[in-house]
């Protein structure tokens, strides 16, 4: 991790090619150096964080005054930092009978800050939770004394989590966890606090900035989707090809406990929706035998989306895995105990994240925890199903090879799709797709859940969500389109995005037919599309051209009455 002065040097770099994000930072303590750390960290993650900082201790004034500079700035992200020290000052001024109302009072204030900001700004809010200050007035007895400051702080952090769980646009940055990890002596520097009113030490600022920008990056779709790992001495001890199935260290054998715990972590990631893939130098049947037969293996073959065990080099194998999953290298993490393999991959595929695993496997977990690789801005029930989707995708590829004619193959899939407008059930998934889809995304406009909800009430806007199910399984909601009435005869395609796992299935044609039928039914004459290039959406460069749109003034137009409907092999469900 860089130091604050190193981050500060980043500020002199050229930010012009980076993704600009307008951020408002409001704190009740001095935040100038936090602002420096945020901007410097943002640079390393590819963001030009354009930070507007409220004057010291102006949170309420800025938020509750509709004419304030905050609203004039129109930020996309609002960071609110209310410190435990100010909370303690508030507590100190209460009458003893009111001590136990502190958490509820503060929560009410936070909720009202959140609602007020969200009512006027289309933004996300990041709120730091509270670091613990044990004032030792009650000792450990504070734990059973609701009027103690420690009790109230912990209650507030707990209530904040419950509150945030129901507020899609409100995220918590876990400052308290940072203090737990590094210790209060590192996080808080009393003489600096007294002389400058900064509650974060210079040394901890890079950590806090990293935690905050990780959230921002996740909100803008920079997330890890897949974890690829080696087998021997990575998820079990020993070399299965040499030592044999019975001798690999797992469970109670040797240092097996550390690998068992490590596998539990991988399994939890898989259950959360991270795709797991194996990339190992092994004979496939030998490697798979461990998954099938070893009683202490936590991971099973069904947890693995792509299993690559052979004697080819890992760079080629990783390219193959990337190709099968159809995700960007920058959303992949590669774990291997062997420094040689790590360096080899790093050299050829620099986009992949490759943690420098410690030498002692006992240290793997604590080290990986500290990297916070899997930050996310959303979690839906569909995430947990993701491995299954990718496995069926791999099966589909095998199946496809037995069909000579592609149409015969598509027909054999028995595909059906549910088409419906956005509603409260599908909006969380649509918002997630909107944040995650980088490749098949024509204009790459990111929508939050709150923004999508607003759209559904807007009269000139028409929304479509599509699911896709076939004989191998249900892909869930995989495509979303937003149409805007531009004029009496033209519908503008504001958004068209699709999950890449359903490419080459004729879904584009099915969506187009749906849009054309809709336009005709509503007496529109033209569909108007636009392609806004990004570093990642090359695959849809000719999307409209391929669908028969003609180019006009940098837009793509389709005459709905002249458009031929396409052959499709998907039925409405």
């Amino acid at each position, binding site marked *: 991790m860089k130091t604050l*002065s190193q981050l*500060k040097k980043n500020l002199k770099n050229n930010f012009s090619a980076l993704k600009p994000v307008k951020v408002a930072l409001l704190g009740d303590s001095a935040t100038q150096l936090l602002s420096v750390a945020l901007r410097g960290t943002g640079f390393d993650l590819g963001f030009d964080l354009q930070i507007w900082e409220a004057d010291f201790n102006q949170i309420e004034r800025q938020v509750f005054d509709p004419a304030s500079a905050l609203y004039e700035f129109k930020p996309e992200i609002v960071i609110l930092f209310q410190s435990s020290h100010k909370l303690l000052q508030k507590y100190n001024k209460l009458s003893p009978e009111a001590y136990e109302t502190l958490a509820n009072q503060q929560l009410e204030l936070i909720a009202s800050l959140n609602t007020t900001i969200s009512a006027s700004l289309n933004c996300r809010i990041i709120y730091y939770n509270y670091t613990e200050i044990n004032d030792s007035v009650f000792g450990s007895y504070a734990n059973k004394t609701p009027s103690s400051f420690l009790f109230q702080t912990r209650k507030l952090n707990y209530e904040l989590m419950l509150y945030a769980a129901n507020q899609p646009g409100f995220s918590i940055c876990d400052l308290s966890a940072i203090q737990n990890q590094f210790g209060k002596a590192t996080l808080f520097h009393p*003489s*600096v606090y007294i*002389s*400058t009113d900064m509650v974060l030490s*210079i*040394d901890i600022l890079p950590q806090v900035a990293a935690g905050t920008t990780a959230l921002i990056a996740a909100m803008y779709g920079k997330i890890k989707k897949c974890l690829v790992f080696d087998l021997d001495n990575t998820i079990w001890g020993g070399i299965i090809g040499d030592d044999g199935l019975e001798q690999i260290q797992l469970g109670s054998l040797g240092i097996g406990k550390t690998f068992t715990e490590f596998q539990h972590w991988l399994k939890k990631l898989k259950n959360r929706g991270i795709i797991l893939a194996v990339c190992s130098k092994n004979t496939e049947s030998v490697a798979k035998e461990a998954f099938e037969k070893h009683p202490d293996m936590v991971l099973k073959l069904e947890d693995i989306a792509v299993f690559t065990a052979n004697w080819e080099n890992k760079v080629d194998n990783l390219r193959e895995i990337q190709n099968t999953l159809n995700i960007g290298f920058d959303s992949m993490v590669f774990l291997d105990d062997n420094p040689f393999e790590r360096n080899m991959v790093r050299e050829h595929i620099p986009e992949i994240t490759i943690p420098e695993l410690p030498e002692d496997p006992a240290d793997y977990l604590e080290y990986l925890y500290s990297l916070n690789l899997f930050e996310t801005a959303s979690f839906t029930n569909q995430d947990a199903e993701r491995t299954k989707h990718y496995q069926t995708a791999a099966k589909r590829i095998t199946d496809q090879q037995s069909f000579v004619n592609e149409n015969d193959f598509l027909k054999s899939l028995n595909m059906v799709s549910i088409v419906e407008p956005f509603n409260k059930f599908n909006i969380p998934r649509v918002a997630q797709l909107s944040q995650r889809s980088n490749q098949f995304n024509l204009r790459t406009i990111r929508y939050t859940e709150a923004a999508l909800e607003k759209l559904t009430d807007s009269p000139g806007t028409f929304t479509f969500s599509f699911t896709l199910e076939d004989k191998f399984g249900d892909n869930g909601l995989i495509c979303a389109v937003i149409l805007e009435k531009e004029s009496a005869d033209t519908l503008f395609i504001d958004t068209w995005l699709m999950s890449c796992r359903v490419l080459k299935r004729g879904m584009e044609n099915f969506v187009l037919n749906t849009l054309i039928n809709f336009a005709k039914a509503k007496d529109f004459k033209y569909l108007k599309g636009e392609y806004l290039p990004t570093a990642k959406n090359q695959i849809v460069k000719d999307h409209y051209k391929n669908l028969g749109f003609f180019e006009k003034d940098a837009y793509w137009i389709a005459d709905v009455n002249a458009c031929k409907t396409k052959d499709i092999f998907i039925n409405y469900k």
Partner: protein
Amino acid sequence: MNRSEILKTVNEVFIDILDDESLVLTEETSANDVEDWDSLNHIQIVVAVEKQFKIRFTSQEILSWKTVGEMISSISSKTL
């Protein structure tokens, strides 16, 4: 460590934090003489000096120095 040795080390810290290779401090130098020596940079300098000398200043000291010489006095009293 004598005062001139301390001054030399402090000078290096200032150069690093203020990112100014040409900076030359004397015991008489004050914040008014150095363009970038504002309150924000001051606190970074203080923390970097603390680390360099493995000492801790009191909050009173941090606020009281008027010149580099006064800072050196604080350092030398803690590094005897």
